[in-house]
């Protein structure tokens, strides 16, 4: 964009012609940019509208007309849901199960990825095909048998029962395998000469070398686990074992049309993932690229 100014100094006639063309070009460009910004605003509006509603007293919420800012700013809705609902327990449940899923998935996927990538054992190829195949199986098709298996293990309505089926994460294994494949063999050979065991190799060399991938995968696994609805909804029936995502729907039923409170719960439920995203934007992007098969 700074080019025309330079040209103008020594070639005025050419520059003016260039400039008029550039101006025309820019008009279209400006229109496109403007449209993008307008659409982005529209896109974010429901989020803003929901958030601002939570700070309004109920009588303002149901008043006709569009009020972009509360007349009486209040935290009463948040106070109410924090004190009067089981949101604390749901939060804790979500936190425990999501953290457990994240840790277990990362460790198991790293282990499996390492084994497939670096170890020679009978059935290795079969194992790899199995993981690739499981990529195809839709998890929602397994809800019935998952329920069956977990009830045989007496895990229905428990937190481990919520965690269980989420441990199937073939994509994570595939990504780890690819990254471990690209670690130069020299490291491995040098460490083996020094008498390192396979565990040491994995945890001292292979994982630390791919620390960036691990954080990215851990973050996206956490967000996914926090947001999951179908399985926690099926596996749990007592209010004390519910995740926040399932718990919200209970509040909805209990409150009827108390929208400000209902949305306050929703905003609280969204808070952790929103924070995680805003803090780790780059890693989230990277993880999404990785799981979509685009090297980020």
């Amino acid at each position, binding site marked *: 964009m700074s080019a025309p100014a330079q040209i103008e100094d020594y070639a005025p006639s050419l520059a003016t012609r260039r400039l008029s063309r550039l101006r025309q070009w820019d008009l279209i460009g400006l229109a496109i940019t403007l449209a993008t910004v307008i659409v*982005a605003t529209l896109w974010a509006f*429901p989020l803003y509208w929901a958030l601002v509603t939570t700070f309004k007293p109920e009588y303002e919420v*149901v008043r006709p007309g569009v009020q972009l800012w509360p007349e009486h700013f209040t935290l009463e809705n948040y106070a109410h849901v924090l004190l009067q609902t089981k949101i604390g327990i749901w939060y804790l449940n979500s936190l425990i199960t999501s953290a457990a899923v994240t840790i277990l998935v990362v460790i198991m996927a790293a282990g499996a990825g390492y084994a497939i990538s670096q170890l020679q054992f009978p059935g290795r190829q079969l194992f790899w095909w199995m993981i690739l195949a499981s990529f195809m199986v839709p998890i*929602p098709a397994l809800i019935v048998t998952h329920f069956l298996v977990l009830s045989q293990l007496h895990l229905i309505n428990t937190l481990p029962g919520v965690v269980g089926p989420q441990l199937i994460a073939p994509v994570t294994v595939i990504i780890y395998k690819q990254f471990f494949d690209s670690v130069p063999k020299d490291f491995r050979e040098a460490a083996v000469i020094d008498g390192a065991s396979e565990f040491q190799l994995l945890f001292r060399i292979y994982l630390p070398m791919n620390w960036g991938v691990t954080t990215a995968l851990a973050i996206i696994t956490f967000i996914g686990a926090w947001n999951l*609805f179908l399985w926690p909804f099926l596996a749990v029936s007592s209010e004390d074992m519910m995740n926040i995502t399932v718990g*919200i729907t209970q509040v909805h039923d209990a409150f009827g049309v108390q929208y400000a409170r209902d949305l306050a719960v*929703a905003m609280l439920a969204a808070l952790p993932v929103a924070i995680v995203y805003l803090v780790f934007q780059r890693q989230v992007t990277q993880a999404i690229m990785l799981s979509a098969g685009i090297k980020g």
Partner: protein
Amino acid sequence: MAPFVVVYGVLFVYPTVRMVQLSFTNAPLIGPGQWVGFNNFLRLWSDRLFNTAIWNTAYFVVLSVIPSTILAMVVALGVNRLKGWAQSVVLAAFFLPYILPVSVVFSIWSWMFDKDFGIAQYAVAPLNGGEHLSIFRTIPLFMPAVAFITVWWLLGFNVLLFIAGLRNISSEIYEAAGLDGASRWAQFTRITWPLIWPVTVLVFTINFILQLKIFDQVYLFANGGRVAPTMVMVQYIYVTAFQQNHGGLADAAALVLFVLIVVLSVLQYQLLRARGER
């Protein structure tokens, strides 16, 4: 390694095998059943509810995947022109909904569309002769509305993939085209479009498979109303197994969904790739 094999065995291989096996029995949700051969599949074939579920799923896939892919490409082209912090902010506006849990999305949009106080009624009511309308209780509007919300929810993911694709195109190509006097439209049709075709295929396929498994939104928005007319496939599995206690029949439906997803995704991928190589 060993725990992984055990977990995989118990939670993946066994359930999958069991699903196939149980789909040939009349088992309840929990407990043994008798071998009934292909009866479950015959029953599904003639079950009106299952047929509704298949058609609704297909309808939903069409309503959500195609607009989502096209819109994501347009938005990505727009966002990609921006620089620096402006790009980050605009991208975040599109991406933030994607990281929300589905039940939060449900809360936000039931408020937006609420019959009495929803802000969207200002747009809906004039189209309905001035009357407020309960969108999610009006059967013909249900699927389009849920698809619209789904597009709103998941668009950011697709935009991100398209932007990654656009960034991979070297700016030298555009500079060369600019010197040759190629118009903006020509630059898009001759350079951008062919080069992001692989990403388009990817986005389309990912969304297609994802939306075949639609359940959460449809269940939440239909809850408390008439469920049957807007039934989708995973919901059929859920209702059959968990509310009617027909485990075998539900597994048969699950197997149909499974096979459908595998066949369609392979087929679609081949088709799209073939077109791209033309």
